[in-house]
């Protein structure tokens, strides 16, 4: 099929970007969306033009590196998949496809379609771990965990840190991501000792990074490739308020 692409091009963080139109001809329905971009890029390179820059690595929906806002939707029109899993059979001959980077203040564009998501790493560094050193831990089967809880923690743990939730949100809220990370640990017995400090530290870092607040629109859940549920946000809020409450108690005492 033959397509028209309107692609956001921006040389680097400090220059202004603009849409540029390209033709993508002879595209096969079996190609993935990123393979379609590969073909366009090969053509550009042959003409001596700078190829379109986009982030990607695993190309099987797990590393969270690919992004792209396709026709107004993060990761394109299909539910529960990433851009690298999107195939061209989803589009039709003659279609115009608009491709943009994630748009959110805390995710500045680095080049073309690639953005800087290091804010996510910083949030996890603030407390997204269980403080155990290597060695000296109990036998794995000394901790029995009910399957229901383990499965629910797993559901939260499937988040791939792609940032589509932020891109989908009109407030650029990172609540879905952060709450998934907090929930995974909050649901497990291993996560209990640091549960409230963790919630506090991660939420504070999230606010520091400039992510917006949540107004319960649910756009994040709808666009999340891993179907992370809004329940996580409820859990996070509860832990965060408990944490604040505990801290205030502490301050009253002193």
């Amino acid at each position, binding site marked *: 099929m033959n397509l028209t692409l309107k692609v956001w091009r921006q040389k*680097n963080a400090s220059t202004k970007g603009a849409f540029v139109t390209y033709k993508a001809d002879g595209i*096969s329905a*079996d*190609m*993935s969306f*990123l*393979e379609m971009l*590969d*073909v366009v890029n*090969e053509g550009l*390179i*042959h003409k*001596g033009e*700078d190829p379109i*820059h986009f982030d*990607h*690595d*695993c*190309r*099987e*929906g*797990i*590393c969270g*590196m690919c992004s792209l806002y396709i026709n107004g939707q993060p990761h394109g029109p299909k539910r529960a*998949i990433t851009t690298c*899993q999107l*195939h061209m059979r989803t589009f039709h001959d003659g279609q115009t496809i608009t491709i943009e980077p994630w748009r959110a203040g805390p995710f500045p564009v*680095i*080049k073309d379609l*690639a953005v800087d998501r*290091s804010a996510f*790493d910083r949030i*996890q*560094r603030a*407390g*997204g*771990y*269980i*403080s*155990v*050193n*290597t*060695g000296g*831990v*109990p036998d*794995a*089967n000394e901790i*029995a*965990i009910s*399957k229901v809880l*383990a*499965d629910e*923690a*797993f559901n939260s*743990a499937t988040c*791939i*840190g792609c940032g589509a939730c932020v891109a989908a949100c009109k407030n650029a809220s990172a609540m879905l991501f952060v709450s998934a990370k907090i929930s*995974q640990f909050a649901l*497990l017995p*291993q996560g209990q000792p640091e549960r409230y400090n963790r919630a506090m530290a991660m939420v504070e870092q999230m606010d520091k990074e400039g992510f917006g607040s949540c107004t319960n629109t649910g756009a994040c859940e709808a666009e999340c490739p891993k179907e992370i549920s809004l329940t996580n946000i409820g859990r996070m809020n509860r832990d965060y308020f408990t944490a604040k409450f505990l801290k205030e108690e502490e301050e009253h005492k002193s």
Partner: protein
Amino acid sequence: MILDAKIPAGPLAEKWSKHKFNLKLVNPANKRKYNVIVVGTGLAGASAAASLAELGYNVTAFCFQDSPRRAHSIAAQGGINAAKNYRNDGDSVYRLFYDTIKGGDYRAREGNVYRLAEVSVNIIDQCVAQGVPFAREYGGLLDNRSFGGAQVSRTFYARGQTGQQLLLGAYSALNRQIHEGKVKMYTRTEMLDVVVVDGKAQGIVTRNLVTGAIETHAGHAVLLATGGYGNVFYLSTNAMGCNVTAAWRAHKRGAFFANPCYTQIHPTCIPVTGDHQSKLTLMSESLRNDGRVWAPKTVELAQKLRKGELKVTDLKEEDRDYFLERKYPSFGNLVPRDVASRNAKEVVDEGKGVGASGVAVYLDFAESIARLGEDTVRAKYGNLFDMYYQITDEDPYKVPMRIYPAVHYTMGGLWVDYNLMTTLPGLYCLGEANFSDHGANRLGASALMQGLADGYFVVPYTVGDYLATIGPKPIDTTHPAFAQTKKDVEDRIQQLIALKGTKTVDEYHRELGHIMWEYCGMARSAEGLNKAKGLIAQLKVDFWKNAIVLGENEEFNSSLEKAGRVADFIELGALMIEDALNRTESCGGHFRVESQTEEGEALRDDEHFAYVAAWEYTGEDKPEVLNKEPLVFENVKLTQRSYK
């Protein structure tokens, strides 16, 4: 050069404990005076960086993705082995050791493999303590499955995303150390060379992928945990960014490269659809537990299927050849990866392949669905079936999957001794990037185990010994070797940027991949390899004349990034061919058509080839020198593998 693997003497089961006792310790007060560089933060690198920082060393870590969480380890699906014997089904450290040595076709060191099996149990404890959500049973304890033909259930798993969950665990440990200021993390940064001072590795040269800045970093020791080189074949199950550059640059600075020709071709991948294809997708090996592999009995039937004149579901039972079950009655569909792959290739070469291209066989779940019910099959493999559907637009609940082997893992890598040190003192190598534990073939679910064993439990001890030996004298980048190595890197980048030819870097990469797959893939012959040697030599000359590299260094330049990697892959390809030519026996994933049994199975030649081939770089376009490390087997008896 005499290669000393430094394997401790004494009984197998005591080697590692004794060795740990004999290793020198660094005084706790001195640990903060040392800086250790860790390149790569996948499972091996992240676990090493975190563990070393916990011990008190200062760590500087690097990865080329935008976050350590995205390393290729994230993609592992199936699981991780450990000799926990939670199932009471007869597993033990010795059995895991034995299976690994045998599975590797007797081309790995006994000492290393035993240690791997020994520490495997600690890995699971560590991961659970970190909050890794492994699959559990209703009683609340951990679940296991049998994987890749093992006779015991020793594989721990986390749905179809064990790699992501383990990596998130190691990443969280790393994050904690970054937070505490003990690890300085550089992302989107690529290592392009090792700095050697007085014969020791004391630093690296890196390029910031966003700005192009070339920088030097100094350390008392340098650890490479940069993953495998399967992308030398262009198409593989590896992530797009996987490359050999770090290991290859180190090789050129004095680290020997061992067994480069040992590559693993995974039997169950989604077949290629066309030239646009950028990567291949693995369908987890666990599918072979319930899926049956078959091809049509005759070439005529295969042709009809290919043309669409016959539907696969209409093919009668007696017209199907379940070739693995037929040839290997005791292991059936669960034969090791190399055997399953070679048999699929054989069937396709005979003209019985299916799918539009004719380069595929079936993996059929009809029998399991009938026996277990669709719901049970969905619960076990739902995510894999969805993934297959997503890519092929075919519903595997209704029609059999089409599969074909693809390059998946590289057993070869930088040569390391028992301490994981390369032949360049101070330079260590961990994870898939080293050659150490899998011999000529890796068992399923053992790479994750090895990466984490190296990072959590081996290197933190062995690096300490080296650091204690060299002492905490400060090391910085003022030595002239830093400026010189930086200049070498800059010159090479300028050479690449100057290439304004007619062919894209991807076109060269694809061509290299074709050559490697055709002549150094599942079956190799002297004739083919010699031909490939010439083709690669030509390709290299042509690349450095006619490649197109756009833009400049001082920008986010994917064209330049790729060019550097492909240039290294071409040189590695030449060495793989050399190694494959030298090894005239068949073993594990390395099948020389000249060396097979009467039944067409791989035939080892223990008399002449029970050694590790460690190649030494001697200069640009000069032949590499072969050094041999003999493999000594004191505990296991070498037998011809048989899965009949």
